[in-house]
């Protein structure tokens, strides 16, 4: 990820191209690269997904474990996020080198899910004040080719869609909790309102969606917008060392909403199509 050094001429080339709505790989300013999504890649998790966006490769595993509900929300389960920036992305992530970036991404994920409507946490409750399901969402960053936040949010949404949590039955009055007899009896989470992040990078006077590493090196400031499938914005954040004009922020937000709705629609259709192929589908994973 760090091995991008661009000369001035290359930067000028990219900036001038973007002004004309033509990027280096021929895309328009609002086009995504080809995204490959596959769910159920790791079998001993409750749900998993792999997303490949250009050269960015993300693997998300969701594990459900029993825990106690939080004091202020006794009727709900909760989600815990952990991001591991693997050294395979760049040698600088070896040891603790990737911790800073990992914490930043995890904090962003906490923020975008920190509202009542993203995930219905009441379905994760087993018995109020005593037991609930905790979903540990673990993100593994394998390769970094620009636009990390978008790819991670797509992967998290696909993994949550794929998550199957076993149904527990607790007897009235007793403290025993048992698994239901049917191994396929599962709670599925509704991911209708799970947001996706759209990163808009300001390059010159225009902004682009899904920037590659080279384009990120040319941009001074970016706006992260977290949008649901209905176009509702749940979180917004400006990143980067440059500054943004308030008008451009509004423009970027509108673009983000527009692009986000299209992204959600395509992701929904892809994961539903994959699920309709049933358990006998050919699982490709990293072998394809």
């Amino acid at each position, binding site marked *: *990820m*760090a*091995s*991008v050094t661009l000369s001035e001429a290359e930067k000028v080339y990219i900036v001038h191209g973007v002004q004309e709505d033509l990027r280096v790989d021929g895309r328009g300013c609002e086009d995504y690269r080809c995204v490959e999504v596959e769910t159920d890649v*790791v*079998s*001993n*998790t409750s749900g*998993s997904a792999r997303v490949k966006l250009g*050269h960015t*490769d993300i*693997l998300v*595993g*969701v*594990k459900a*474990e029993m825990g106690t509900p939080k004091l202020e929300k006794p009727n709900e389960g909760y989600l815990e996020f*952990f991001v*591991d920036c*693997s*050294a*395979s992305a*760049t*040698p*600088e*992530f*070896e*040891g*603790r*080198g*990737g911790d*800073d*970036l990992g914490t*930043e991404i995890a904090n962003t994920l906490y923020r975008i899910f920190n509202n009542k409507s993203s995930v219905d946490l009441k379905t994760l409750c087993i018995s109020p004040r005593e037991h609930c399901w905790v979903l*540990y969402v*673990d993100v*593994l960053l*394998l*390769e*970094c*080719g620009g636009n990390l936040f978008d790819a991670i949010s797509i992967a998290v949404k696909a993994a949550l869609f794929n998550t199957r949590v076993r149904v527990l039955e607790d007897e009235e009055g007793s403290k025993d909790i048992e698994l239901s007899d049917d191994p396929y009896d599962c709670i599925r989470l509704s991911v209708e309102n799970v947001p996706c992040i759209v990163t808009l990078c300001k390059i010159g006077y225009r902004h682009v969606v899904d920037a590659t*590493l080279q384009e*990120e*090196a040319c941009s001074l400031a970016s706006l992260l917008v977290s949008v649901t499938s209905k176009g509702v914005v749940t979180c917004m954040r400006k*990143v980067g060392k440059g500054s943004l004009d308030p008008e451009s922020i509004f423009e970027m937000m509108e673009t983000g909403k527009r692009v986000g709705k299209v992204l959600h629609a395509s992701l929904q259709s892809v994961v539903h199509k994959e699920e309709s192929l049933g358990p006998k589908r050919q699982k490709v*994973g*990293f*072998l394809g």
Partner: protein
Amino acid sequence: MAGLELLSDQGYRVDGRRAGELRKIQARMGVFAQADGSAYIEQGNTKALAVVYGPHEGMGQGWTQGSQLKGARGRHMQDRERKTGGFVLEIRGSRARALPDRALVNCQYSSATFSTGERKRRPHGDRKSCEMGLQLRQTFEAAILTQLHPRSQIDIYVQVLQADGGTYAACVNAATLAVLDAGIPMRDFVCACSAGFVDGTALADLSHVEEAAGGPQLALALLPASGQIALLEMDARLHEDHLERVLEAAAQAARDVHTLLDRVVRQHVREASILLGD
């Protein structure tokens, strides 16, 4: 686990294999485009990824190249400042770690938090991962021709995505393919396999259930052409009379793995040369 037979009377193991049979192995080289070399291997339900960077200039841990990386800071940055004629020349990176006559092999073993049945809290940095990293380093220093690249460093990063027994063996096999994909010269393939001993029979390629049963486990990394052993490790008690049988089972399994990996490499080269238009 009470009542679980690791080897039935008819000679079948828990998953239906015979005593000397390996699990299904599928592998692919060149998984990531940005790394110098990468490979992925599946041995039954154990999935491992290996990525190789190098040979490149020797770096200390946490060295940053003045990159665009958001927020990454080297915690153990070692700077040496040398004052030359009035202005300060800052040399970053630890040259002290680079060896003058050969390449330094640096390995990191990391297993994903969702890889095991129980969720792991830390992917790497704990004792087991550090020990595995050192073992991998020892294995590959025996195989890579490090004399050809003095004062440089070769990084091998292994990531276990799903652990179902035989993780060391899967990591070594994946790393061999990744080093070959990176074009780093090696003395020979390094093929590894685990072996155990139950009811007087040596078992090859243990799964997690067989490892957790607590019997003796042997991990062997072999250079197949010469039959030299790069790493040998054994846990638990085993009578020395049985050692030779278990060792032979592991060695035979490693040779079988070699046949498979050889096929994978040849297939990869064939595909690459087709793309080049030969």
